[in-house]
């Protein structure tokens, strides 16, 4: 098994920036990512796509090319299409590439596993035709697909970005049905000075809204009673706006009410996580360099708390500086000298966050779904089931998992975990921290038994 100074998991902004900085400082780095090309979700396929439709996707997207360029360094091995499924002490990292299991050793590991869409369980969200807004963006970026008759539903600046991109592609969405209210905006305004320091984000948001408005896209805010109708596929979105019920026929529904850290890998290693009330999610507990409470495990990017692509890039570089110092490549003084401008840039990037988090809070009815709504897509468990298990004494999600299989399917709780914690916390009158989260174990992603068996050194002929 090959050993490296540093193994980075995830080739998004944090992982790419960390790899480039660490390599420059003399570390040998292996970067593993499950996608076949670098960029993460935010800069997905940027090397190929920037020339094709950079005009639609915008300058922020094209910026990703500066990061992919940084990977062309002799000390960086980028394993593309490598799906990590176990990280064990030592560290021993098991992954699948080209249908075969393999392993790599590392002195230190940096997890840059990014974010997931916050689960948005509303009636009908499992129907074909309903996707995350992030999925809509990925389809546009990577595959050049635009939904012909789409409704964008939920809350957050990402909805405006997608709508603006769809407008530029010549196929505007049918409507934007947003759940944030005017009072959310007023609550957010007391963080306006922070937001003004991050004025670029506000200005971009306003420009996108103007673009969407010019295209004549209908916009509803403060929408409630969201319900996707259809039997075998999404046929319409029904909702209430200012006391009136609306029904918009459509073939595609893009859901979004924020993104949350993808904590699977960190949790499998036992990194401590704490509930972040403002972002309504669990974030890992880290020091200013991204060092976790598991010795040797570092983290950077949206997987540590949502801050966006620029903040992720900065965090990746900061972690790399600390790692270079820890492994003896630079002095502490040199580390701090290089880190100083990054710390200030990070503070600037963070300035707009409180405003955005409060102006676009998660959709209340998706945070506490009605009993009949499916919350675990894999095992088809409803919110009512979870509430019943709470009445049977379940204090935490590992007990409801045993009782009703929520979190046991192939997605391993990625799209039900936060909902289950929220439902149990509410039912038991506990905090999310007291309620806890799923015990995450390998495999982090499914792996065939044949691949596993081929790695069994006890019996060499087992996987024939």
């Amino acid at each position: 098994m090959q050993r490296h100074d540093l193994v980075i998991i995830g080739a998004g902004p944090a992982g790419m920036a960390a790899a480039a900085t660490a390599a420059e400082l003399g570390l040998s780095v292996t970067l593993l990512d499950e996608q076949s090309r670098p960029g993460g979700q935010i800069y997905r396929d940027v090397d190929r796509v920037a020339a094709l439709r950079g005009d639609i996707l915008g300058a922020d997207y094209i910026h990703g090319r500066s990061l992919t360029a940084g990977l062309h360094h002799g000390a960086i091995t980028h394993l593309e299409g490598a799906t990590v499924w176990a990280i064990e002490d030592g560290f021993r990292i098991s992954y699948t590439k080209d249908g075969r299991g393999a392993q790599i050793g590392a002195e230190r590991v940096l997890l840059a596993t990014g974010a997931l869409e916050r689960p948005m369980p509303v009636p009908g969200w499992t129907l074909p035709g309903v996707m995350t807004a992030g999925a809509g963006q990925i389809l546009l970026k990577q595959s050049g697909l635009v939904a012909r008759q789409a409704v964008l539903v939920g809350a957050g600046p990402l909805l405006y970005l997608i709508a603006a991109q769809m407008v530029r592609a010549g196929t505007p969405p049918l409507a934007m049905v947003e759940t944030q209210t005017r009072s959310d905006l007023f609550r957010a305004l007391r963080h306006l000075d922070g937001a003004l320091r991050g004025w670029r984000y506000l200005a971009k948001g306003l420009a996108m809204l103007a673009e969407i408005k010019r295209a004549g896209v209908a916009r509803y805010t403060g929408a409630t009673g969201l319900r996707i109708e259809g039997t075998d596929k999404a046929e319409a979105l029904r909702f209430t706006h200012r006391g009136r019920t609306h029904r918009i026929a459509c073939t595609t529904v893009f859901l979004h009410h924020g993104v949350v850290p993808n904590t699977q890998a960190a949790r499998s290693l036992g990194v401590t996580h704490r509930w972040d009330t403002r972002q309504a999610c669990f974030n890992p507990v880290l020091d200013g360099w991204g060092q976790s409470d598991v010795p040797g495990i570092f983290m950077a990017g949206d997987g540590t708390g949502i801050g966006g692509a620029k903040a992720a890039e900065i965090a990746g570089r900061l972690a790399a500086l600390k790692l270079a110092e820890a492994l003896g490549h630079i002095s502490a003084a040199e580390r701090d000298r290089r880190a100083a401008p990054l710390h200030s840039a990070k503070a600037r990037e963070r300035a707009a966050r409180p405003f955005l988090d409060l102006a676009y809070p998660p959709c209340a009815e998706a945070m506490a779904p009605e009993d009949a709504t499916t919350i675990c897509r894999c095992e088809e468990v409803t919110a009512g089931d979870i509430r019943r298990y709470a009445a049977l004494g379940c204090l935490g999600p590992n007990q409801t998992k045993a009782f009703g299989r929520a979190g046991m399917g192939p997605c391993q709780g990625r799209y039900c975990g936060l909902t289950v914690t929220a439902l149990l916390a509410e039912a038991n009158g506990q905090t999310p921290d007291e309620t806890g989260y799923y015990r995450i174990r390998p495999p982090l992603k499914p792996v065939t038994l044949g691949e596993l068996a081929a790695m069994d050194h006890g019996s060499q002929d087992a996987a024939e």
Partner: protein
Amino acid sequence: METDYAIIGGGVVGLSVAWGLLRRGLTVTVLDGDDGAFRASRGNFGLVWVQSKGMNQPRYAQWSQQSAALWGDFAAELSAATGQRVPLEQRGGYDLHFSEETLQATVEKYLALKEKLGGDYPFEVLGHNALRKEEPHIGPKVVGAILHHQDGHANPLKLLKALAGDVRRMGGRVLTGKTVTEVTKPDSFVLSCADGTSVGAGKVILAAGLGAAVLGPKLGFKAPVRPQRGQVLITEKLPKLINRPSLIARQVDEGGIQIGATNEEVGHDDRVTQPGLSGLAAEAIAAFPALAKAQLVRSWGALRVLSPDGLPIYQESTSLPGAFLVTCHSGITLAACHAHLLPDWLEGAASKPDLEVFSESRFAVS
């Protein structure tokens, strides 16, 4: 005194006993731990199993047989009471063998046990071809199997849920998130919990799995239980591939193939390891080659609760009469006995089962 019985431990063992006591009209309070506690009830393999049990102690084989025989009624009663099926299949189970030698050696041991049991040990030996008729997906490396007709498997999680529901339905009080720290007996028993909760009881049952090693000595028990890790795998849901369960693999009622299990002496470490997963995968594929293409979706490690000889311990405290230790490795197999027969023993009924061989007197004083 608030309750006839206080039961420390709300896993399958504790709840099965609670259920049996409630059914007799006794009052019961169960004190259960938190979400993160080691819980064999959540991690076990789910077999209702007779073969290979009690090779050196026929009474244990018998006790397992008795429970297997009671399981059908037990599951049916729970299902009827809760309105939710407790899946159980008792159409026999296999001990699969990859060599003639191990098969023959095992058969000889079974024959010896059969004689001690007065002939009640219904098994047959299937050669590869006979086995293939029963299990079309069996691999060429499997030379044969012992098919034991008293074996079967259940859904242990649905059992746990049904017990949790039915114990409450019958008026059992279940306190969750409790860690019992002290048990005293000024007059009747008083149990004190870490959070300040206090429960008074006429009798106390310690059914806390590995927790008994800590609490047991305070109640006058040796409680020599240790953890032994078992790693278990489960695949995606698949079409029917395996008919009868074995110690290597079984197809659960939801469709996944469950593969087990390692036996590791690693203390209180319930993590899974790549070598553990790979070894189990290799063995399962040797038994059922089609599994090579199946996706492993989950794995877990759970800690067996083992006594030095692997047998259950049923013991009343000599220093604190009225306190009982109930612990075993096979909580699922023995659940029916614990629910139907153990209450007689606890209550000292005339018809109580003879559990003398399971007392702590078998362990040397250290």
